[in-house]
């Protein structure tokens, strides 16, 4: 029995070394090599949005897949659309920690979570000057990744008036910018409708500069 185990284990060592080279080096590097072709290189390197002046990858202004809540210099004149809460943020609202990712793991019966939801609803309703009942669920709950780039169209809608007022853009123009980054369900039935906050804030900033 013992010699059987040692003989099989010796074969195992040799096979594992070969597999480590084939599956651990050749395979991922081959996939990486193919990802260098145009069209795949963008997503492979993080779907980075380069600034309007077209500078190279590495000096991006955001990733279209990553949502980080922007902080206004003056909270009374906040020109930004806001993302969903992140569990890694220091306060109930505000930017999460982009060096990691994750959720709160709090259950529906968790009293801390109940407090956070109520606080967020009150803060957002005050910020947008709307009825608290109009604040949608995704606005008051932390996302799974802490980096969700999307909000629901409902959450975008209640932010339009404020962003238009602070940036000086016409409401209709802000509405059309929102429409430009709103995606319906993929193929009409996969997932949920989304508004990409990262792309939206860049579009608003570009329009406001003109």
């Amino acid at each position, binding site marked *: 029995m013992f010699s*059987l185990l040692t003989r*099989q*284990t010796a074969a*195992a060592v040799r*096979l*594992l070394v070969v*597999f*480590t080279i*084939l*599956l*651990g*080096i050749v*395979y*991922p590097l081959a*996939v*990486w090599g193919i*990802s260098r072709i145009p069209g795949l290189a963008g*997503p*492979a*390197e*993080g779907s980075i949005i380069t600034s309007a002046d077209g500078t190279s990858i590495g*000096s991006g*202004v*955001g*990733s279209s*897949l*990553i949502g980080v809540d*922007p902080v206004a210099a003056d909270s009374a004149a906040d020109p*930004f659309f806001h993302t969903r809460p992140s569990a890694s943020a220091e306060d109930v609202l505000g930017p999460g920690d*982009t*060096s*990691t*990712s*994750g959720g*709160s*793991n*709090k*259950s*529906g*019966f*968790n009293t801390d979570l*109940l407090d956070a*939801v109520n606080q967020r609803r009150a803060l957002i309703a005050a910020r947008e000057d709307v009825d608290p009942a109009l604040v949608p669920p*995704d606005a*008051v*709950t932390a*996302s*799974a*990744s802490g*980096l*969700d780039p*999307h*909000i*629901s169209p409902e959450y975008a809608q209640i932010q339009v008036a404020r962003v238009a007022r602070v940036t000086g853009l016409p409401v209709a123009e802000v509405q059309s910018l929102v429409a430009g980054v709103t995606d319906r369900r*993929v193929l*009409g*039935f*996969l*997932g*949920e409708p989304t508004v990409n906050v990262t792309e939206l804030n860049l579009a608003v900033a570009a329009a406001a500069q003109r």
Partner: protein
Amino acid sequence: MPSTLAGLLQAGSLVLLLALCYRPLGDYMARVYSSEKHWRVEKVLYRIVRVDPAAEQRWTTYAAGVLGFSFVSIVLLYLLQRLQPFLPLGFGRGVDGDTVPPAMAFNTAVSFVTNTNWQSSVPETVLGHTVQMAGLTVQNIVSAAVGIAVAIALVRGFARSATDRLGNFWVDLTRGVVRVLLPFAFIAAILLIAMGVTQSLRSGVDIIAVDGSQHTLALSPTASQEAVKELGTNGGGVLNANSAHPFENPSALSNLFEIFLLLVIPVCLTRTFGTMIRNTRQGAVLVAVMGVIWAAFLAIAWISEANPNGPAAQAAGAAMEGKEVRFGIPGSILFGVSTTGTSTGAVNSWHDSYTGGAGGITLLNMLLGEVAPGGVGAGLYGILVLAIIAVFLAGLMVGRTPEYLGKKLGRVQVTAAAISILVMPTLVLIGAGLAIALPDTLGALGNDGFHGFSEVLYAYASAANNNGSAFGGLTVTSDFFQTTLGIAMLFGRFVPILAVLALAGSLAQQRKVEAGAGTLPTDGAQFGVLVGGTIILVAALTFFPALALGPIAEALS
């Protein structure tokens, strides 16, 4: 389109995709494991590692191969993590400096070799690219191939007659890698990149956001591991948020594709089984049982999640805590039920934040022994063992020696089957019981009350079933949890494998008996009901008290 209708179409399209693959992929895998011919690249491999591919093995030799290979894998993966500071593409990642501590390295090594893929670290800050690729990606592929090999050995036990040989473990392992997992993973990885998944050798990318704040977003060779993380029902995230992270699962389309990947091999292996024993209806019965459980669980979890009873979720207006907008509730629940019904354990939403009903379903899905449809290989041998128990129970009712697929089920076979299904409940109940008895555990809980108990029960269910998902609120960094969960993963993987291989050996030795007038037909709806009933009954009798203290109590609150 209303959300519910869209969600139903989403689930329906998933079932359709799987149905389209069922025959071609199932029959392809049957040919892979039956063919006499070796591919040229395989012959080169056999020569390098000096094994004789023509040598057929007894079950003991086959089992020694499984154990030897897994042992060596744990050692290598442990060493790779500990040696990270000396490896390229490490980027100084680690815990308190650039090292991976021994307990964490051990837990991760055991976890990835046993196909559990429980994450005890934050990968984007702890693990460099070399450990991810040469360590974790390799185990994602080979641990899945080991699972399929064991299932194929059991199928051969039924298919063969009067022999003590089950095949050659090295050949089965190599073919699983070279002909099934690697080529499909390669294609899937490219498709995932096209959908937005990253595949980078850089450590991260710096951005200056619209508000002037600076961030470094972690990059990794994600797609190559993501593909096989799902295809091999592994589930360990390349990034901490797993398939909730936009770099791992960027869109609703990639979400559906990943759910498809994690289900496709376990589902199609039932066809492989039917084809290899030359009676595809036997496989169809098993996949029907899997499908009914999966669909029923999906319905219960979805209804519960759409109608949350927790005050926090009600205050928010919907159970969106721990979910991503692009997936919504239907896309999150579809993933959650599929990942716990297989042994994947990847998550696109946090199960700890699910309602009592939906969280309870993900827990129960694992406690059934993961057979709806189960892990790659592990699901097939799991449900075959339960089918044996079902035939045995039916035989007891009519008082005759039962037989299944032409093999008599005597003392040896039923004992092996019973050992195989009893290991997991033993580990779960003793582990969770011990943990709850310890005063320190209260401090480790992320939520209190019924839900806190569910967190502990979930941890041991996940480890003993080699799932790897978690009610993540529980802090498992203490030595007690690291050790006992590690033991649960090891025993939960290898004791059933040994029992299954012993069972396979004893079945292969028998001559086939012709079906008689008293033989229970096992290729129809009646047998499907019997197997489904056995699965539910075994789990209910074992776990009802524990479930009543946790998720059931919460769901009724």
